[in-house]
């Protein structure tokens, strides 16, 4: 019996995709939707990247050369927002769409129509957000953290559209995560136990819970802003008994878990790739699951480490410092497990592995600087300087973004049926690796030396490192055109990939043909031993 009943009135029973544009608009297929998410995210990455390049171009030298301060800060804001909500999150959702049903042996996502809905909200939301550039008052100019009252009483009128944009993204994320949770809990192949699932599935399950818990809080905080702006409420106005710092508490209650939302799926990806290329089973599978859960739990109780200078009582400062430091322990477990997986393996360094190894190293550097930020007295000096910018770009760019690139190279042959060009892939990796470090490593120095973030112009002593950083940004940015080229070439090409693609890849997705059939598992997979890598 087929696992998928199709509701088509055609005579022919091929379960393939429709033709033409409408295939993408109307699709309910998890792979099509995954593809949509991934392309959308790539476009957003380039858009956010171009904004970053404007920032870096202006900061190439001291003085104002290219943009006015007002526009600069709009660039910073939109860069942060687009990268976080438009590039990284949708990329992970896209990967989940493609991979989770295949990895758990399901025919599709649990709620296929809602899946399409979750995606198609996004282009509308981001069009609205980007349209604010052309509206009166200009785009949002209060940073991606939009602290009140800069984002309420003192905001341009477009803040209203920003708020509704956030509502839409939130709705999309909530529906997306419900779908993923239900797929994982309800759609596993018969006999597939939770503790047999690949780590990517585990990390996404936990991420989906984080999303479900914090996206509504984000919706809450922007709603409070909306009320303060248009209905004279006093949430963030001391004159009416409110408190601007209340905004920060609610925002960071969302915001801190949000940064783990952007890294947990990355952990899952790396945990799939390293064993494959080390030709060894993942070290400490169970502890990986527990560590991820511990990180997720801790992420709810550390939010005020972003607010150490915001006038928190000392007991609060100490508590949030200790709690934040604790996160190093489960994260360390993960790092050590990856290293132990590589240890005494039989390693080869294809492009996905290169990105994964770079991930482990550079993410750890970012994590360690995060730990330094957690030390309150030191954070008084680091806070709101480029040291913070360096920290989070290390965990986000060679962290989250590298993991996404690793995933694309790793699964691209499965998606398209074709092998990518390995030499070009490696070139892309080395350009990106060098570019990223040239861009963000010097920012540690400028930050420590005292350069504040979110400024369009800076004092003369920061000039040298900013120039280096800007050069790196352009190198890294333009390398991504090569990435685009490699992907397009792979789709066009005819270098057939095998079903298993990688010599020692484990997991149900590799038991399917390449390219994967339109409906993943029409009959349940049998060899569940293969499930986790």
């Amino acid at each position: 019996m087929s696992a998928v009943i199709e509701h088509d009135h055609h005579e022919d029973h091929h379960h393939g995709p429709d033709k033409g544009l409408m295939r993408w608009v109307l699709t309910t297929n998890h792979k099509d939707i995954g593809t949509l998410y991934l392309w959308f995210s790539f476009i957003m990455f380039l858009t956010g990247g171009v904004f970053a390049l404007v920032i870096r171009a202006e900061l190439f030298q001291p003085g104002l050369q290219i943009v006015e301060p007002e526009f600069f800060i709009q660039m910073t804001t939109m860069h942060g927002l687009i990268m976080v909500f438009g590039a990284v999150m949708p990329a992970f959702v896209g990967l989940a769409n493609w991979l989770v049903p295949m990895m758990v042996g399901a025919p599709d996502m649990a709620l296929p129509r809602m899946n399409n809905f979750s995606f198609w909200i996004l282009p509308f939301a981001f069009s609205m957000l980007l349209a604010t550039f052309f509206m009166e008052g200009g785009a949002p100019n209060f940073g991606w953290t939009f602290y009140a009252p800069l984002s309420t009483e003192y905001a341009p009128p477009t803040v209203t559209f920003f708020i509704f944009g956030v509502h839409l993204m939130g709705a999309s994320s909530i529906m997306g995560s419900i779908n993923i949770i239900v797929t994982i809990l309800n759609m596993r192949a018969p006999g597939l136990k939770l503790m047999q699932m690949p780590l990517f599935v585990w990390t996404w399950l936990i991420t989906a819970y984080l999303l479900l818990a914090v996206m509504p809080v984000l919706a809450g905080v922007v709603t409070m802003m909306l009320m303060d702006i248009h209905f004279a409420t006093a949430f963030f106005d001391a004159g009416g008994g409110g408190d601007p710092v209340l905004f920060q508490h609610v925002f960071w209650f969302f915001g801190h878990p949000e940064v783990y939302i952007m890294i947990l799926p990355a952990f899952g990806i790396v945990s799939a790739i390293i064993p494959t290329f080390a030709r060894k089973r993942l070290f400490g599978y169970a502890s990986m699951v527990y560590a991820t859960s511990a990180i997720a739990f801790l992420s709810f109780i550390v939010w005020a480490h972003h607010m150490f200078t915001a006038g928190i009582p000392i007991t609060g400062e100490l508590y949030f410092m200790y709690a934040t430091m604790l996160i190093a322990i489960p994260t360390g477990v993960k790092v050590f497990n990856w290293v132990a997986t590589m240890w005494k393996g039989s390693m080869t360094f294809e492009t996905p592995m290169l990105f994964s190894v770079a991930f482990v190293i550079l993410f750890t550097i970012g994590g360690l600087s995060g730990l330094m930020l957690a030390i309150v007295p030191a954070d008084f000096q680091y806070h709101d300087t480029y040291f913070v910018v360096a920290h989070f770009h290390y965990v986000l760019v060679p962290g989250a973004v590298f993991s996404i690139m690793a995933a694309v190279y790793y699964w691209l042959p499965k998606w398209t049926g074709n092998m990518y060009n390995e030499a070009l892939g490696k070139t892309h990796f080395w350009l990106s690796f060098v570019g990223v470090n040239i861009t963000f490593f010097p920012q540690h120095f400028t930050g420590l030396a005292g350069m504040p973030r979110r400024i369009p112009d800076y004092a003369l002593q920061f000039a040298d490192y900013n120039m280096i950083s800007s050069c790196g940004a352009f190198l890294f940015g333009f390398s991504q055109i090569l990435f685009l080229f490699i992907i397009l070439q792979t789709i066009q090409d005819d270098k057939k990939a095998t079903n298993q693609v990688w010599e020692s890849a484990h997991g149900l997705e590799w038991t399917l043909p390449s390219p994967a059939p339109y409906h993943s598992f029409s009959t349940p997979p049998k060899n569940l031993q293969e499930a986790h890598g």
Partner: protein
Amino acid sequence: MMKLMQLKWLISFALITISSAAFAGWDDINLREGVTQISREVYDLHMLIFIICCLIGVVVFGVMIISMLMHRKSLGHEPADFQDNHQLEILWTVIPIFILVAMAIPATTTLNAMYDAGDAEIDIEVRGYQWKWQYTYIDDDPNPATQVKFMSNLLTPPDEIYNRAAKREHYLLDVDNPLVIPTDTRIRFLITAEDVIHAWWVPDFAVKKDAVPGFIHESWAIAEEPGIYRGQCAELCGKDHGFMPVVVHAVERPEYDAWLADQKQAAQQAWNETGKTWTMDELMTTGEEVYLRACAACHQVNGQGLPPAFPSLVGQGIAVGDIDAHIDIILNGKPGTAMQAFASQLSPSEIAAVTTYERNAWGNNLGDSVQPKDINSMLTGQ
């Protein structure tokens, strides 16, 4: 070949990380030690956690690199078959705990010292405005006539910012009126803001505190060496967030006392002048000076503004209309726009002068004027 390159990179990377420690004294790439007890403690703490992190990096990356060099397929290395090792896993859960405790202890001590609310000798209110600071020396027995209170504006001229003139030393880090404090004296800063959140930051004192409108946050410092200490606003506060430096001038006690006496005298004089009747010329001269300092950034030197964001004041609108409305918008600003309330930023004389100036400059020859004492009585509510 690829492998070689990779190796080179990894090693040079580790080297950079480690050698950064060696550059510790280098101001351009590291924290400043600063000039207070606290700031030095913070510096030591920073170096401690930094070195610990570097060591962790060396160990972790070291093992990784060895593994990547030795355990590769191209060398014919066969994969081992282990998936678990509970002792090892316990070990690498427990060791980090000890490392963290080692970091947390000095951090807690330093933090306690920072929050220790001792008795300060001098209280100074620090108030953030878009985009300047205001300092008020709080007297034990307040006397409005001799209150020392002034704005501290960026001194760097637009020509330097827009690359039309050479950038001088302290580019963007210079102000017209720095905060002056005595050395070896405990100063309490009462930090607040008028409009949006700012953060008052002096790296050399290791003081960074958010200035939140409607709330006062406390901080303190004892500067041990005379000198000029520069910092910047450290919380995004709008378009000119990058242009509101903090400059503190620490001087020996006698010099401070002399300075304060001068300031009080000047305040007294300004207070007296509020009461006298000003001539048109006096109003216009002072008015122009005030206008260029406080208003020209938005309304431009020629009064034309930058419509639609900043309205022109020439030949149209409030500046050539009813004088009470004109004074009102200057005193109270217009909420929700960039036009701020100047009542607490400018003295009555200055407000009177700038109002008169706007009504009679650039061809707005209305001929009317307003006296400082009238403004004063408006402010005090008579």
